[in-house]
C-alpha cells in the first residue's frame, strides 16, 4: 500500500522523460527475465491478457462495480472521496450527470432512484481509461456524494484517478456559475 502511494505520488509529477525511463526499466526487466525464465514471461503475458480482456468485458456493467471498487482488488488502483452538499438528491443527481459529461467522461449507467452513476474516461497513450463511480445518498438533510475513480487495468494509476476527481470537482464548481 505504501509503495503504491509513493508510486502514485511519483507519477503525479511525471514528465515524458520519466515515463520513458520507467518504460525502459520495464523493458530491461522483461528482456532479462525472458532470457532466464521465458515460461514466466509467457505466463505473465497470458495472465495479463486474460485480466485485460476480462476487465474490458465487465467494464461498463454495474454488476461488476464491487470488483473494480473493492479495496482488496490490487489489480485496479483507485481513489475515493466523499463530499457533502445541501442540494436535494434529485437535483444533485442530474447535476452530476451533466458535470460528468461536461468533464469529458462518458456516462454508461444512470439509476436515479438508487442515485448511482457509472462513467468511463477515454483511453489514451498513458492509460486504458478509468471507471468513475458516483453514489449520491441523502442522510440527515445533507446529500452525500461518494466518488470513486478506479483504473480499468493497472496497479498504478499514474495520478490519473486524482486528476479525474480534480477535473470533476472543477467542472462542478464552474457549473455553479449560472
Amino acid at each position: 500500500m505504501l509503495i503504491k502511494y509513493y508510486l502514485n505520488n511519483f507519477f503525479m509529477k511525471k514528465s515524458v522523460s520519466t515515463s520513458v525511463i520507467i518504460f525502459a526499466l520495464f523493458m530491461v526487466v522483461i528482456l532479462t527475465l525472458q532470457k532466464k525464465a521465458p515460461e514466466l514471461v509467457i505466463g505473465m503475458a497470458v495472465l495479463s491478457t486474460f485480466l485485460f480482456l476480462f476487465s474490458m468485458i465487465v467494464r461498463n456493467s454495474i454488476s461488476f462495480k464491487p470488483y473494480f471498487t473493492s479495496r482488496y482488488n490490487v489489480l485496479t488502483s483507485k481513489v475515493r472521496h466523499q463530499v457533502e452538499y445541501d442540494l436535494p438528491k434529485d437535483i444533485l443527481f442530474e447535476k452530476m450527470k451533466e458535470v460528468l459529461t461536461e468533464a469529458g467522461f462518458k456516462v454508461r449507467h444512470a439509476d436515479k432512484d438508487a442515485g448511482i452513476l457509472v462513467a468511463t474516461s477515454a483511453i489514451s497513450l498513458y492509460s486504458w481509461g478509468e471507471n468513475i463511480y458516483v453514489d449520491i445518498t441523502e442522510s440527515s438533510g445533507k446529500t452525500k456524494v461518494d466518488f470513486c475513480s478506479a483504473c480499468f487495468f493497472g496497479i498504478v494509476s499514474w495520478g490519473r484517478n486524482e486528476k479525474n476527481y480534480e477535473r470533476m470537482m472543477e467542472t462542478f464548481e464552474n457549473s455553479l456559475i449560472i
Partner: protein
Amino acid sequence: MSIIVNLDVMMARRKMSLNELSEQVGVSIVNLSILKQSKGKAIRFSTLGAVCKALNCQPGDILEYKDDGDDG
C-alpha cells in the same frame, strides 16, 4: 447567504413553469433549480438579462439583499 433569489416568487406571479422558463432562457432546468434555491455560486449578466426578459421584470425583483448579521 445575504443574497436571496426570489425566482420562484416571480415565476408564480407570471404563472410560468420551470420548463417554460428553461426553454425561454436557454438554461437547463437543473441549473434553474439550483439558482431558485440560492445555491448557485454566481449569476452571469447574460443569464440575469435573459431571466428578466422572460419574466418581464427588473434584476431587483429577482435578487434581494438580506442582512443576516454575519460579518463574514
